[in-house]
């Protein structure tokens, strides 16, 4: 069977070779890179611009953006027909293609985030390595851990005040470089779509900017969501342990910090959300006003076939509802939780409407294609380009984050541990 035939239904006049070739994984790809870029921008707000209130969130979002990073590549690998050749993007990059930049930009960005993490957590690596070295009777696990942490120190054991100060400076510089690179990483994902002149819906110079804005929105929302979940777990643990030890922070104290942090972050979320919506509406209005040749088919898709996806799910549930939830005075954690879930859903729907919506009409401008997401994985193709594959991609960053939390003191309250 031809790739794409399985989930494409054609209506009216569609060319024989046209199918929905870019399916769910290409929806996941800008969604995931958006989360990476957004999480990083959030952490940089603290590191570069010194927004002190975001300190807890910043540490956490940096680690989270690193956990998201390998996942940004996953959907691409899953959608390639020849994934074993994926490395060629690094071997023979053809820079006239927006995708060729992927290997370079992605690795540059990954290395920046990794270096920044190294500087932030270097003291922890050194301490752990040294304490393991001092340990008299090491079991095999300790030995492995010792080797691992010694390697992580890269041989730099100097943790004097002056050295640590230098680390701080380095973090600031890296975070500063990281912002444009993160925006570029995601902006060019927008460019991949925006520069396809054959596709009437995609082709707009606004696409990269829209992508960056919604990326920041989704990244902040995901960080808030995870932060809330983690804090709730913490509160739960504290309440359980309260009886045995008295010098732990109380659950009320945690809640106070949490609410403060959430309220401030929510303000940034709102700002970027409004910006993203304005740009998207501008694009829509502009298309309707200029009404070039392709507008007839686009209109029938936007206001007809995809009306529910675009106006109810994306703009209604994904943008309008959270706006109301966040703008309503006296934001509570529960309301913020509901709000960020809607925001994340809205951004996902925006990616969906761009990627799938852009392929839902024919190059003849006289036919439509309908996408049916494969739910039950019957074979490898329906697994990787179906619901299962998408869920796998969505779940991976949380597993990675959990692993990183085993290595790094992400939620440590001990401010001495970190800068």
């Amino acid at each position, binding site marked *: 069977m031809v790739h794409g035939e399985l989930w494409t239904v054609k209506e009216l006049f569609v060319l024989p070779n046209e199918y929905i070739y870019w399916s769910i994984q290409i929806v996941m790809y800008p969604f995931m890179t958006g989360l990476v870029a957004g999480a990083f921008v959030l952490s940089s707000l603290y590191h570069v611009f010194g927004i002190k209130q975001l300190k807890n969130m910043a540490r956490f979002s940096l680690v989270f953006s690193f956990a998201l990073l390998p996942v940004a590549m996953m959907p691409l690998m899953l959608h390639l027909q020849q994934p074993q050749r994926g*490395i*060629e993007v*690094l*071997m*023979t990059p*053809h820079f*006239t293609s927006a995708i060729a930049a992927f290997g370079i930009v992605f*690795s540059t960005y990954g*290395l920046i985030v*990794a*270096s920044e993490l*190294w*500087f932030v957590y270097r003291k922890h690596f050194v301490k752990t390595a040294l304490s393991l070295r001092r340990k008299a009777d090491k079991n095999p696990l300790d030995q492995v851990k010792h080797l691992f942490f010694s390697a992580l120190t*890269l*041989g*730099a054991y*100097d943790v004097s005040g*002056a*050295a640590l100060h*230098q*680390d701080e*400076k*380095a973090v600031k510089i890296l975070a500063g470089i990281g912002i444009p690179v993160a925006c570029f990483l995601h902006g060019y994902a927008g460019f991949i779509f925006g520069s396809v002149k054959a596709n009437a819906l995609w082709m707009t110079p606004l696409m990269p900017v829209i992508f960056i804005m919604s990326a920041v929105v989704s990244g902040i929302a995901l960080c808030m969501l995870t932060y809330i979940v983690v804090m709730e777990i913490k509160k739960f643990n504290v309440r359980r342990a309260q009886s045995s030890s008295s010098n732990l922070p109380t659950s009320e104290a945690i809640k106070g910090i949490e609410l403060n942090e959430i309220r401030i972050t929510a303000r940034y979320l709102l700002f970027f959300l409004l910006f993203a919506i304005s740009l998207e509406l501008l694009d829509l209005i502009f298309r309707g006003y200029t009404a070039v040749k392709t507008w007839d088919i686009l209109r029938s898709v936007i206001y007809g076939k995809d009306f529910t996806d675009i106006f109810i799910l994306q703009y209604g549930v994904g943008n309008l509802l959270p706006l109301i939830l966040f703008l309503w005075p006296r934001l509570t954690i529960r309301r913020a939780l509901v709000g960020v879930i809607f925001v994340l859903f809205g951004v996902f729907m925006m990616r969906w409407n761009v990627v799938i919506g852009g392929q839902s009409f024919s190059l003849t401008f006289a036919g439509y294609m309908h996408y049916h997401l494969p739910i039950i994985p019957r074979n490898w193709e329906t697994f990787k380009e179906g619901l299962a594959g998408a869920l796998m991609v969505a779940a991976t960053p949380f597993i990675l984050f959990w692993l990183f939390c085993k290595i790094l003191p992400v939620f440590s309250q001990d401010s001495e541990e970190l800068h």
Partner: protein
Amino acid sequence: MKGHVWRPLYAVICLVVLVLAARYFMVPKDFGIYERGYMYGFHRKSAEDYWKTFKVKYQFNTDYCRDCHAEKYSIMQTPHAIIHCENCHGPVLDHPTDPEKLSVDKKRELCLRCHLPLSYPTSGRANIRGVDPITHNPGIECSACHNPHMPSLEAMK
């Protein structure tokens, strides 16, 4: 800055060197920029030869069949002369060695490709004589009555 600050950079340089080394071994030697420049000519040269040496299946040579099948060339005096033998008899490939015998397509649908009447103005289709396949001897191969090599209705009698 103190030396330790550059440690991650050294790690990065090691990585880049690794990739470049891998590139040296992985990229075919004939990969380069050819006639149409970097934008359109960036490719593996030997890929052109792959297509140049692709196997030819159809000869579509009017004289190819004549040596053995000269008697069939009466078709050249009929309106069907414009149709190459292989359109109905299948691709020659290496016939007569491989395959020994070609499989001729005798289905009604083959004839209907042209002879289903569609009176489309501005299209050559309107000028071809046709039959309604639903009423015209359904189920019977056209060649049962008509000789495709001598298609004129006058010749039927």
